[in-house]
């Protein structure tokens, strides 16, 4: 639990698809996906096998050492980083004051976060026997870290999975000091060498070795397993080979010296002795009785292990003593929390009631809940609430392969037609910032020049539509245009996940468009159905969102021509080239320029009508301390949940 396990960064580092409204992200888990093939509805049939990995004959280590010049890379202890952060940011008020404070302003929010977010200064403050009840918005389908696809699975996997790398709250990558002794990269950027610690064990007592890492790479690159895990695979594709030279030394061979190689070496690690004989016959690793048993009782490499699992209800994790004690000696920090009970609560309101009752200790809150339902004494009796900005944005996506939206003027007209102000102030409770492009405005990769913010201007929208040839020629009140010799009406469906707050935003769009002679039907769909239709590109317009990637390069699978998650069919040669350049550029300043340019081009083309950047809103039990927000929420980094503790 100490660490946010690094391989997650790859997955979360890929941009997550979130079908969520401004109100809540409660079910985003069901829709967040790491790749097109993760949903069983999509991969119901055995997919086409991918080409097998070309054999590779790695040079002996001494040869490699002789010819390569190494640069040391950071090996950090995330908890130490957190303590340094605490020391640099003293608590502005006392704990008692913070507990009594109502979170009514940004100032109060910061006070509460800085005060209650502190790590314990003394071990006696900590209730070492605590159970924390956490909320999952949906059940965990898979416990095998290779197959993790939803946020729920990510939360669980981050506690039971094993990895070599991690990211901090600024999304900077590093090797985790609990697992790694040394990490170095060759000067030419073609090799990464990692020396692991020798006191690591799986929960079944076997040591975790470099061979497990190399084996995991082989499994991911297996021609039959690969199609089931496209997201992880898209990173490892860039690797040529992973070689374990002894139990502790592993070398990653890159195909090209890319700036993004650091993300490509972050993949989940599974135990070789468990899976080496079984994965070939059952590439989904879930159908054979042997794998089913493993799904129920997975071998853990992280600080926790699953002790109880009730489908649809809860998953109970317990701290592994053999994780922090090796041969009778404490080698790693003891997790602050002994037991973690993940309760599956889909509904936001039920979660809020459970929080008030004390049945849950933490929960994500919707915008409406944050604003209206969490100001009472009943809420503050046991809880407090905090928020932090997140790199998550929402948009209306316009399918550019349809006759309606292949013209940039029409897409701009859509952005002019929409009443952004009412959405931000009223439908989103004034809690969110307008979205001005694919990167969060405060991130380093966002363009330096603030782009023009679209405001509703119906006259401009109508003029643009007239210009694009969409006029009401038959006098029925609906715009039409001749396309390929056929006159078509401007009438389309917008897909939206089935939540009232999201539907309300689409309904506002519908109203706005109707007033300028365009008929838009709001089609609320179940998240899974909607996801499938977006992946199959069977839609004209859709309301959806993207979560942040740790590195801007990860968004190439949304914007490059023909990329799997390029649902709207965006295609721009300059953007394609810039993404390639960005991968090869190592200088942060220059990369920022490249990605800023990409953001500018995309914003100018308006394949999306960019709506708003979401923040995370959380309610925490007053007993809980040590939480802090990153651009990916309170747990999506290292130490994340590892720094949370319970007072006595």
């Amino acid at each position: 639990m100490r660490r946010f396990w690094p391989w997650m960064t790859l997955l979360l580092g890929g941009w997550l698809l979130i079908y969520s409204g401004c109100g809540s992200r409660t079910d985003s888990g069901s829709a967040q996906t790491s790749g097109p093939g993760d949903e069983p509805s999509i991969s119901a049939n055995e997919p086409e096998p991918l080409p097998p990995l070309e054999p590779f004959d790695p040079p002996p280590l001494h040869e490699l050492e002789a010819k390569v010049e190494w640069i040391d890379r950071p090996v950090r202890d995330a908890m130490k980083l957190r303590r340094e952060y605490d020391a640099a940011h003293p608590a502005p008020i006392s704990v008692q004051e913070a507990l009594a404070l109502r979170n009514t302003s940004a100032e109060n929010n910061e006070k509460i976060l800085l005060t209650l977010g502190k790590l314990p200064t003394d071990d006696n403050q900590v209730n070492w026997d605590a159970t924390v009840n956490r909320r999952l918005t949906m059940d965990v389908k898979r416990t095998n870290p290779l197959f993790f696809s939803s946020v729920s699975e990510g939360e669980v996997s981050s506690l039971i999975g094993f990895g070599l790398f991690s990211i901090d709250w600024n999304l900077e990558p590093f090797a985790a000091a609990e697992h790694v002794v040394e990490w170095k990269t060759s000067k030419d950027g073609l090799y990464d060498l990692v020396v692991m610690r020798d006191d690591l064990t799986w929960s079944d007592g076997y040591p975790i070795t470099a061979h497990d890492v190399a084996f995991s790479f082989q499994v991911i690159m297996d021609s039959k397993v690969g199609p089931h895990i496209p997201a992880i695979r898209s990173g490892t594709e860039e690797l040529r080979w992973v070689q374990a030279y002894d139990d502790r030394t592993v070398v990653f061979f890159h195909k090209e010296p890319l700036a993004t190689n650091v993300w490509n070496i972050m993949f989940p690690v599974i135990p070789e002795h468990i899976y080496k004989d079984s994965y070939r016959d059952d590439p989904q690793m879930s159908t054979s009785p042997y794998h089913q048993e493993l799904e129920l009782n997975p071998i853990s490499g992280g600080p926790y292990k699953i002790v109880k699992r009730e489908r649809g209800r809860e998953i109970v994790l317990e701290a592994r003593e053999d994780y922090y004690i090796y041969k009778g000696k404490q080698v790693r920090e003891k997790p602050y929390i002994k037991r973690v009970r993940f309760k599956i609560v889909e509904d936001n309101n039920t979660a809020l009631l459970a929080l008030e009752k004390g049945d849950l200790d933490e929960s994500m809150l919707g915008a409406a809940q944050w604003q209206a339902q969490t100001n009472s004494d009943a809420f503050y009796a046991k809880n407090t609430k905090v928020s932090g900005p997140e790199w998550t944005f929402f948009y209306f996506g316009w399918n550019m392969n349809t006759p309606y939206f292949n013209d940039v003027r029409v897409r701009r007209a859509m952005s002019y037609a929409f009443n952004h102000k009412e959405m931000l102030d009223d439908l989103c409770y004034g809690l969110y910032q307008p979205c001005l492009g694919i990167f969060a405005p405060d991130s380093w990769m966002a363009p330096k020049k603030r782009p023009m913010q679209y405001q509703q201007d119906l006259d401009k929208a109508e003029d643009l539509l007239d210009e694009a040839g969409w006029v009401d020629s038959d006098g029925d009140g609906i715009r039409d245009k001749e396309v390929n010799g056929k006159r078509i009406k401007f009438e389309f469906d917008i897909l939206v996940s089935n939540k009232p707050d999201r539907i309300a935003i689409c309904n506002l769009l519908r109203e706005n468009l109707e007033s300028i002679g365009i008929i838009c039907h709001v089609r609320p769909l179940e998240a899974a159905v909607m996801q499938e239709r977006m992946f199959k590109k069977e839609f004209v317009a859709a309301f959806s969102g993207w979560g942040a990637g740790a590195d801007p390069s990860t968004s190439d699978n949304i914007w490059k021509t023909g990329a799997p998650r390029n649902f709207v069919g965006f295609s721009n040669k300059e953007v394609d080239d810039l993404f390639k350049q960005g991968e090869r550029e190592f200088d942060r300043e220059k990369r920022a320029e490249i990605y800023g340019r990409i953001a500018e081009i995309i914003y100018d083309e308006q394949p999306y009508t960019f709506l708003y950047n979401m923040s995370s809103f959380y309610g925490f039990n007053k007993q809980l301390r040590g939480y802090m927000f990153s651009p990916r929420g309170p747990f999506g980094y290292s130490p994340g949940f590892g720094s949370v503790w319970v007072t006595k």
Partner: protein
Amino acid sequence: MTSHPGDHKQPHGESPERPGDEALPRQAPEDAAGLGAAIESEAATSGPEVVGFSVPAPAAEPQEPIERDVPRGYWAEAWLRFRRRRLAMTALLFVVFLALVAIFSPAIVGTKPIVCKYKGEIYFPCLGYFNRSWENAIFTKDRFRNVYAGNLKEKDPESWAIWPLIYQDPERRVREGEWPAQPANPTRNYGSPNRYNLFGTTPAGVDVFAIMVHGTRIALLVGFVSMGIAAAIGITLGALAGYFRGWVDALISRLIEIVMCVPTLVLILALIAVLPKITIWHLMAAIGLTGWTSIARLTRAEFIKLREADFVSAAKALGAGPSRIMFRHILRNAMAPVLVPITFGIASAILIEGGLSFLGFGPPPPTPSWGRILAEGQQNNTMWWLIVFPGLAIFLTVLAYNLIGEGLQEATDPRLREAGR
């Protein structure tokens, strides 16, 4: 003499000229007039009560049993019995009231003029609430942007308009400056009931009263259309099974049993997953296509009973074909018991629609639906007005249909009728 089932049931019946002659039109004129008067008096007393959604029935004048020695048709007799049941009558009036609200909804609340004169022509923009294509294109062309108030005068000073009673819209928020001295609808959770929003507003600022009034159309439509489909299927199949017996009966009975096993809600959820576009009509079709079994069974039972009756034999003897016998002679005498499951079916159809909308599978916005307000209320549990008003409306409507069904049952079933005495 040919016999007629109506005759069986009324001892003083005249013998008709033709077998199976219409029972209903044979009411004595004064009887009909009396009925009309009774309806009026009922309406006068209970009408306003219903408007205010208060449940207790009016303390109406004591109903004297009307016992006249005038020959009455079977239906007239049933109607008489039904009228005596005060609760059932109140329920019927409530449904009539809802129907009126549904028909005149655009005139009650709306932002589109009922009638207006614009650039020398008369238009009825309010029809756009029924069907968008009935709204005249000229207003879109002239960039009215769905706001008539203000624009009308601005673009044609000569124009005039008759407006609905309340200026609110079921499909969108009313904004500042649209209507003189009317503020913008409150949004978020601030929209508690007030002068301008009688039942409050949704978080998006849409008037709940407007949605409720226009939602009446959906509620009633769902009930009537789905049960219309169900009745058409159920009666036809039931009649065939009951009349022909034999293998036809066996086949249809098995079909009934199979269809009874299909859970409506699950079927609809499956349909939603399969069909690319789901509309309210699909829902009605699904409810109708699964809800006909009890109607078919009752019809079949009635037909089995009546096919042996003398008047059927007589009709046969006169050379009437099976379809004529079935639908002209037997059916009208079998209708009464069949009406009962239809009425109950309407109630359950309304409940299903409400439930689906609540779950988010109902008609998508902007179609106004009671169930969807409830769903929004569930998301925002401090906004009581999102729960109370639509909840009450669904409750009362379903209750009304059930009371009518029960009233019908007792009014048309001779055994119950005797017991009720």
